[in-house]
């Protein structure tokens, strides 16, 4: 008998899955630094993520936090920049640095068998970095050149400006660096920032993967004796000053064949009770490949290679953002279609079938996102750094399972109003 290809195979709805966030193990080093650990995985590899309260919210001059973070491994009291990198790379280990708004991280990826060789180096860079003048000069020069290049790109300009409209240039979420900022930095700025926010800073560690049996002792030896977590680091609060003008059109490159479109409105952080249900609404709107924005603007009209909406969830505030690059002649039409989709969501109840699809998709994707030790610890890290607990995880799942079309409509009426959105096109 021929197989029936018309009728879909029976599925188990993802909303019926029992999705668990596997718990972490926790221990403290001698100096009080807390370590959150998730052990598992099929490969003999691990990651160590040291998170400092050293994001750009703490800097007094633009770019100091990022530059300090970047130059951590460019020289210590016993090793040159090259010697440090070469030592990590000899063991196939990777040391990455990232600086964000509130936190700055130093992340090590390495083979389990080489952990013992590389962890002392990690301790060294966070306690003995020297910030050589020459390294600073090279970074400045290359950073200015990178900026010149980025300023040619419409999407880069658009990303900076939309954040400035939302949060204001004086706020860490809204500010950005200009050429003069790079020139203004000197070694004293970096050393002072380093002493306060790394050397004697506040740190928390996340580890995941396959651990060597003596990992606790090794962390204690190389990190646990450092002068961390001794002084209180006060959280910096900056006022948000949103722009009053709502619509912007900017010509960055007259020859451009596309426009970078950003539509955004302020939105609360994850502690707000609307957040989980808003994620469902966002998925219907523009949060995945099957969303309304994608179906209409890419798959029906072909105006763009991709269009997405997302909830920007910073620690203290956020935004609801729509982002796309569209053909120059269809930018206006694209924006009109986005507003039409908002209107539809405000006025017409979402069909139960569409809502169920989105719920299944979200929970299936969540199951996939939690697959693997690095993914699990990364989820925990995102929660712990934002003062969220496992309750947030289970509550979100419950809301996704239970949310009804009427609530979606109500949320759209609260949040997806054309007049609340900043509108920017950079050509």
């Amino acid at each position, binding site marked *: 008998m021929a197989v029936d290809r018309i009728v879909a195979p029976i599925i188990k709805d993802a909303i019926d899955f029992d999705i668990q966030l596997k718990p972490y193990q926790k221990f403290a080093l001698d100096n009080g630094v807390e370590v959150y650990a998730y052990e598992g995985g099929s490969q003999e590899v691990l990651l160590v993520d040291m998170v400092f309260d050293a994001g750009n919210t703490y800097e007094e001059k633009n770019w100091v936090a990022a530059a300090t973070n970047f130059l951590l491994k460019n020289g210590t009291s016993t090793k040159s920049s090259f010697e440090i990198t070469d030592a990590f790379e000899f063991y196939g280990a990777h040391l990455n640095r990232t600086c964000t708004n509130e936190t700055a991280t130093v992340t090590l990826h390495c083979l389990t068998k080489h952990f013992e060789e590389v962890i002392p180096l990690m301790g060294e860079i966070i306690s003995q970095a020297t910030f050589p003048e020459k390294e600073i000069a090279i970074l400045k020069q290359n950073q200015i050149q990178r900026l010149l290049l980025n300023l040619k790109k419409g999407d880069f300009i658009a990303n900076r400006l939309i954040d400035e409209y939302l949060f204001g240039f004086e706020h860490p979420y809204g500010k950005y660096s200009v050429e003069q900022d790079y020139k203004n930095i000197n070694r004293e700025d970096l050393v002072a920032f380093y002493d306060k926010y790394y050397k004697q800073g506040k740190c928390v560690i996340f580890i995941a993967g396959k651990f060597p049996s003596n990992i606790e002792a090794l962390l204690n030896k190389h990190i646990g004796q450092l002068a961390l977590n001794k002084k209180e680091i006060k959280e910096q609060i900056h006022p948000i000053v949103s722009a009053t003008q709502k619509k912007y059109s900017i010509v960055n490159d007259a020859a451009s064949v596309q426009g970078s479109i950003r539509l955004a409105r302020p939105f609360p952080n994850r502690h707000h009770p609307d957040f989980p249900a808003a994620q469902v609404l966002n998925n219907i709107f523009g949060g995945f490949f099957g969303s309304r924005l994608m179906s209409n603007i890419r798959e029906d009209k072909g105006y763009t290679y991709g269009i997405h909406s997302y909830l920007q969830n910073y620690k203290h505030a956020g935004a609801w953002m729509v982002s796309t690059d569209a053909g120059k002649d269809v930018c206006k039409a694209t924006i009109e279609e986005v507003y039409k989709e908002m209107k539809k969501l405000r006025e017409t109840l979402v069909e139960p079938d569409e809502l169920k699809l989105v719920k299944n998709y979200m929970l299936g994707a969540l199951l996939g996102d939690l*697959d693997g030790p690095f993914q699990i610890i990364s989820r925990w890290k995102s929660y712990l750094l934002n003062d969220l607990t496992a309750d947030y995880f289970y509550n979100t799942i419950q809301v996704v399972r239970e949310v009804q079309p009427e609530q979606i409509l109500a949320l759209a009426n609260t949040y997806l109003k054309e007049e609340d959105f900043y509108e920017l096109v950079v050509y």
Partner: protein
Amino acid sequence: MIQFEKFQLDNGLKVLVHQDTSTPMAVVNVLYNVGAKDEDPAKTGFAHLFEHLMFGGSINIPVYDEPLQRAGGENNAYTTNDLTNYYCQIPAENIETAFWLESDRMLSLAFSKKSLEVQRKVVCEEFKEHYINKPYGDAWHKMRSLAYSKHPYRWMTIGASLSHVEDATMQDVKDFFFQFYRPNNAILVVTGNVQTEQVKQLAEKWFGPIEAGTPYVRSLPKEPVQEKSRTMDVRADVPLDMLMMTWHMGGRFDEGYHATDLITEVLGGGTSARLYEQLIKVKQIFSSIDCYHFGTVDPGLLVIEGKLVKGISMTVAEKAVLEEVEKIKNEILDAKEVQKVINKTESVICFEDMSIMNRAHSLAFYELLGDADLMNKELSLYQKVTPAMIQQTAKQIFQDTNRNTLYYYSKS
């Protein structure tokens, strides 16, 4: 060591299964043995455009994505010069949905006129976004046509020109589909929380009834050995001068392949690599510089490209790169440096193999090369590379007559 089982259906479809019970997910990966290199030179960009059309509905299923999302799955695809690969990740309990969807679009597409019209536009926007509306976005178009005279690697997967994509007809689409998208020209890999027996049953049920096509015998023009150094000048509205050099290298089956890969690591792998240390840090001639290759099946290109520090002349920059190149030819590497790049490679392999998705991609790719088990032998092949092999391979590749140079000048 990635364990797997392998069988073949009567219609020629190769099936590989890798079980990992630690995950609740499964990955279904279908690789078609067709890439941009198989395109008609007058209709380039087709393999990639086709990848888009594969989501525009199949003979029995109007929309591909919807049922998959309903089953909690996600999918994507990519096209290279050598192959086209489709994959979905789905909760293992719903794996049959992926078989249903993938087999139906192998059986036949819906060939919807609307889908072709829209995807032509979407790909044109993709072309603009990545290759026109971006500084240096045309560099690789120019380099490929400079470095290759005969072999179809001379065009990009996105296509040689927008017009090729705009002119694609429904007849082109149908011909392409029935030539290449047949079970005997495909490899199905299933990884994750699955049993081989279950996969066998599902594969027979859903893919078994699809008829085999005429076997595709690839016969591509061989690139003649380059006999003279080639150069090209470009002037464009970019902020910085860029220097891009390529040298022809062996393909995936070349005995020097692993040594070549390690050469790119020695020169360009990370911030302790030679080009970064010497040309960015010590001499400060470049603000960024990379050395890499694409790992293509047929003979490919080894690339060095970098942006110059403002005020440095192209001549000085070129000379500095060539000095590093000469060094690797003339001075044998010490054992420690070789050990470093081998260690790095081991690490890359271990991290890559963490996810069932990457394992599926690798199994499919190595099976395309002839034997999926090659993936388990890769590391030992790297470990066999000696300093002398690196030097010898460097001498073969880094010859002036084998070099293509793009001088990309800033107008300002």
